[in-house]
């Protein structure tokens, strides 16, 4: 029924029509593509102004050079040479990828049970649960990071709580200002972005498939491994990309809770555009970061497609 009406919707305007007349109106009625682009146009224009132009400028500037206050617009690889000559840049980039990877894994591990619970165990008022998941977003990102600072600080909630119930005598120093604090804070900050896509893919699973797995002799754990998990993989993959890509370049969280050990590539970029006052170098770092993330994501997706091929 729907597919029929869909195809007829498409075939009518694309058929050579004599009655629709000329002019812009007729053009839009005849051309499926024109209508599509017209709908996309506002977004495309905004994307072009706010994304494409800045990225082009960024790439262009990464080939400039700066000495003191003067930027020279000559084509030069000097920034990129610098990036690979000084081990600090590459090391921080690797560390950023490592931290984001850890954040992604931690977020998925935290998000999956939550999504599973809402999809399978909540019978009524699912919407309320979904809204509750987004509640942290009702305050600003900065405030949430500060909240973790309060939680984990030397005189923070965790330390005073533990002292209060007599488990420790002195505050623990290793809670804040390190990589673990960055991973924890980011995992919490991005949880909803992982929960929602996983929830959607779990919700779509036909419940009779799980009954069929049980009927064919598989207990709850095996049913999960053989049916639920593979069928929810699209959500897991989407969630992992949604978390991994933006966290690599994050600079607020490492700055606030990461200390000197938790520095990420975003902090270096920020520094170059700020106190370091070397915009071309900052641009070059940003470009290398973007290319690296793209490569990592491509390899990740390629590995997934290989795994899929092998299993079927």
């Amino acid at each position, binding site marked *: 029924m729907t597919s029929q009406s869909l195809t007829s919707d498409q075939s009518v305007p694309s058929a050579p029509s004599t009655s629709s007349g000329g002019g812009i109106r007729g053009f839009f009625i005849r051309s499926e593509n024109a209508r599509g682009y017209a709908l996309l146009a506002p977004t495309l224009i905004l994307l072009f102004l706010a994304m494409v132009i800045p990225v082009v400028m960024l790439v262009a500037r990464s080939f400039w050079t700066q000495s003191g206050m003067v930027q020279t617009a000559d084509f030069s690889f000097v920034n990129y040479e610098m990036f690979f000559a000084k081990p600090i840049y590459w090391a921080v980039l690797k560390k950023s990828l490592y931290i984001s990877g850890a954040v992604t894994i931690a977020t998925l591990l935290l998000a999956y049970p939550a999504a599973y619970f809402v999809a399978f165990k909540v019978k009524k008022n699912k919407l309320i649960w979904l809204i509750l998941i987004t509640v942290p977003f009702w305050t600003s990102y900065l405030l949430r990071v500060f909240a973790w600072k309060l939680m984990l600080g030397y005189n923070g909630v965790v330390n005073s709580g533990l002292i209060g119930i007599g488990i420790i005598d002195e505050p623990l120093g290793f809670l804040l200002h390190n990589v673990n604090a960055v991973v924890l804070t980011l995992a919490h900050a991005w949880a909803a972005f992982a929960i929602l896509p996983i929830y959607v893919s779990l919700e779509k699973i036909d419940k*009779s498939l799980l*009954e069929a797995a049980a*009927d*064919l002799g598989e207990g709850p754990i095996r049913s999960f491994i053989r049916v639920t998990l593979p*069928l929810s993989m699209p959500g897991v993959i989407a969630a992992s990309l949604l978390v991994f890509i933006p966290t690599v370049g994050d600079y607020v969280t490492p700055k606030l809770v990461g200390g000197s050990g938790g520095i990420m590539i975003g902090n270096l970029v920020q520094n170059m555009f700020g106190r370091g006052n070397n915009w071309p170098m900052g641009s070059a770092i940003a470009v290398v970061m973007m290319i690296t993330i793209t490569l990592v994501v491509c390899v990740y997706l390629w590995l997934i497609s290989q795994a899929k091929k092998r299993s079927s």
Partner: protein
Amino acid sequence: MSDESFISIKNISKHFGNVRACDDVSFDIRRGEFFALLGPSGCGKTTLLRMLAGFEIPTMGEIFIDGQPMAAIPPYERPVNMVFQSYAIFPHLTVAQNIGFGLRKDKLPKAEMDKKVDEALEMIAMAGYGHRGADELSGGQRQRVALARALIKKPKVLLLDEPLGALDKKLREQMQLELRDLQREVGITFVFVTHDQEEALTMSDRIAVMAAGKALEIDSPVDLYEKPKTPFCADFLGTMNFFEGSVDSIGGGEAVIKTAEVGSLKSKGPNMDFSTNDRVMAAIRPENIEVAFEQPSSGSFITGKVRASAFLGDRAHVYINVEGRKDPVLTAMQNMDGAASQMSGQDHTVWLTWSDEAVILLPQDAS
């Protein structure tokens, strides 16, 4: 445990909140039987099947399969397998992986497992389809795969939940015969749920007719059709003309029923457990009513006028208005030598006759 009570359903009730999906149901299913649970939607037949599979837990009562109580046994340990209404083919697996899904626990060497899967594919006439994805199958093929996937486990009981509901009519009729043959071949007890009375009559050894959470009658298709014991069954299986009345006299395998609509009716039907003045329904199947265009010379008859006829190809249903009766009397006639065309006109006066054996007495209050 005997072959007579291979599956034993004892006083099973299932309540969902205030709804009694099953209400004190008890009956036995024989070993190797093709058994149908038949009833309108919401009668509790699917709930009962799901309790056999272990997906629902009875509120009260107990189920035994092959002498074993099922109460504490989860679905994945029961000696039953199910063909789901939606077929529940795993979309992320190939046909072969779907069919072999339940074999993991048998820990077979891969070659042996492949062999079993190939045999199963052969059985459902889908050899060579093993590598196909689940989304490349037609409705009938999905149904076969679901069947093979369940049967490869060699269950004691195969449960089928409206297995043919999603197929078109021609395919359904073909699959009815195939299922029937397959069941004889493998000798496994089949329990299947359907709301389609024709399907139940075609396929099963015995049928349990269910309504409002109760199992009303359990019998072979022929006996259910020819000797129904409740008005509900009489009406649900096929069609039936009912005449309300009371017993005037009864005895010696004969009864006379006084009706307000068509006067006295004589019955030599199957049910004679009534006494004088009991309120009863006299029921006559449409095909047992003979339509004549001239007054019969002898015997009892009633007269009426043709109101409408429905031509069905091989037969015709003719609705006849009878003076003093609100609903028309339904008659069915074979369209032999174009007999149905004689009925095409309206307002013919006709005479209806039937044999006394065709008049079945049913209690009025039941169901």
